């Protein structure tokens, strides 16, 4: 005779997989940092534009995915094809990757600039209400997707791999690969450059001034339109770099609607850390990456995205302005 509790325990999978969580703790934490640093770079674009215009730039996910296509085409035009990873001298490999980063940054930066000029600036000149901007942002996002769809179809571009995976060292039970180190280190470096730019340069001060008080910024001689343009471009450049890292991690990632979920996560990361806050974007991105990996281990793969957003909602219930608060506007970023 067995009790019903024992019966349940015997027959069904445990609802919470603490074993998997513990076994994969280090692997998931490291993998989470890897994803998280990509989220963080994309989140910076949402946060900067939100800080300056109080606009949720939904089309930022497409600014990102254009960078992913730019990466794929750079590899393709360099002569690489889908199939086995080629054997490349390190110097050559680095040169190709740097080239891809430059091209993707240019493409994403330009996309962001065109988006600002064509979609948002006309609305600003007419003094359109906030809602019009939001609808336009969603519309622009769909249009940018459809352009890719018409041009390249609905299938993802076939994976082109340049980097051979290699284990560099171990942390706990997990091995750390070359790709992970490249992505995390390069992303954090990019974030430092962005943070320094915003906090230490004249243009950065202009960005913060417009974010804090646009009229008074004008009284100081700040050209608001130029600052807005610059903000979109900086967000685009960062998204372009993120796209290259993303394509190294997920080589089949160039798909017309492939920016949607990642954009949503990056946006969630920005809100989690405190939208309008550069440090918040970094913290939110890394946390979200780690949380969703552990969530997946605990509750199963189908819960991955759910866990990320449940955590977001929970944090917002207790801290409506995110973990670090909204600070491009209020305190120092």
């Amino acid at each position, binding site marked *: 005779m067995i009790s019903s509790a024992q019966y349940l325990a015997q027959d069904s999978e445990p609802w919470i997989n603490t074993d998997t969580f513990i076994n994969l703790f280090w692997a998931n934490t490291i993998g989470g940092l890897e994803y998280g640093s990509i989220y963080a770079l994309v989140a910076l674009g949402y946060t900067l534009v939100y800080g300056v215009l109080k606009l949720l730039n939904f089309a930022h996910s497409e600014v990102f995915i254009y960078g992913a296509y730019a990466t794929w085409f750079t590899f393709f035009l360099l002569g690489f094809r889908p199939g086995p990873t080629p054997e490349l001298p390190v110097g050559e490999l680095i040169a190709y990757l740097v080239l891809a980063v430059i091209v993707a940054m240019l493409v994403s930066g330009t996309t962001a600039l065109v988006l600002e000029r064509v979609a948002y600036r006309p609305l600003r000149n007419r003094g359109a209400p906030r809602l019009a901007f939001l609808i336009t942002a969603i519309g622009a996002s769909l249009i940018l997707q459809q352009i890719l769809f018409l041009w390249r179809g609905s299938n993802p571009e076939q994976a082109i791999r340049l980097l051979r995976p290699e284990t560099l060292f171990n942390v706990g039970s997990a091995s750390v690969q070359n790709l992970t180190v490249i992505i995390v280190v390069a992303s954090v470096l990019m974030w430092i450059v962005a943070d320094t730019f915003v906090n230490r340069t004249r243009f950065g*001060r*202009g960005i913060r001034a417009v974010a804090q008080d646009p009229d*008074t910024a004008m009284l*100081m001689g700040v050209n608001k339109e130029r600052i807005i343009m610059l903000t979109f471009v900086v967000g685009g450049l960062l998204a372009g770099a993120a796209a290259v890292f993303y394509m190294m991690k997920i080589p089949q990632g160039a798909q017309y609607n492939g920016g949607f979920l990642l954009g949503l996560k990056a946006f969630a990361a920005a809100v989690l850390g405190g939208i309008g806050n550069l440090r918040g974007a970094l913290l939110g991105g890394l946390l979200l990456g780690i949380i969703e990996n552990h969530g997946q281990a605990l509750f199963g793969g189908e819960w991955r995205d759910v866990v990320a957003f449940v955590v977001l909602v929970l944090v917002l219930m207790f801290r409506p302005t995110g973990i670090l608060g909204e600070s491009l*506007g209020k305190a120092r970023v």
Partner: protein
Amino acid sequence: MTLLELDSVSVHYGRIRAVHNLSLTVEEGEVVALIGANGAGKTTTMRAISGIRPVSSGRILFDGQDITRMKGEKRVELGIAQSPEGRRIFPGMTVLENLDMGAYARKDKAGIAEDMERVFELFPRLAERKDQYGGTMSGGEQQMLAIGRALMARPKLLLLDEPSMGLAPQYIQQIFRIITEINQQGTTVLLVEQNAQQALARAHRAYVLETGSIVKSGTGKELLADPAVKEAYLGVG
């Protein structure tokens, strides 16, 4: 020489007319006061001069140049700086960064450093608080910072919108003394004040604004002695 001239300027907020056919001049080297009751249109006039609010008719001339349609940020380069109503300090910037913002349009590093020294001489309090965030400064300190920030543009024309607002009496005295000092060092000043007594005593000339139009003008002394002004703005009579 006339530095600033407003020629029948009207300004609207939507369909509300806040300023109507307003004409005034400010000569180089003067302190000119603009007084009037709440809602008379003083701040609106200042915003129009700085280009934050577009004019619906009339012309604004600065240094002989028509700036009616010029963008606000360009007017700063020409030499118009404003310490706006309510101070409008950047809350998330330090005192030093706020002062740097005042010099945003300038490129002459040496001159900027000089002016920073000058601002710290005028307001020693700011020198003690260089790294404090603007948003955490007291009202009086913020007022000093707002004036200092405007001076950092090394303007030809300094617009001050209620610089004494919310200040304790000893600070009000100090602010007015500093306004005179700034003027003696060569900056032309257009001053909006609720504190009409002080403003008229310090100003070379003044205008009285009522519901968007100038109703009276004269030297500061004349207006101080004017019975109607006394009754309406000086709380006597």
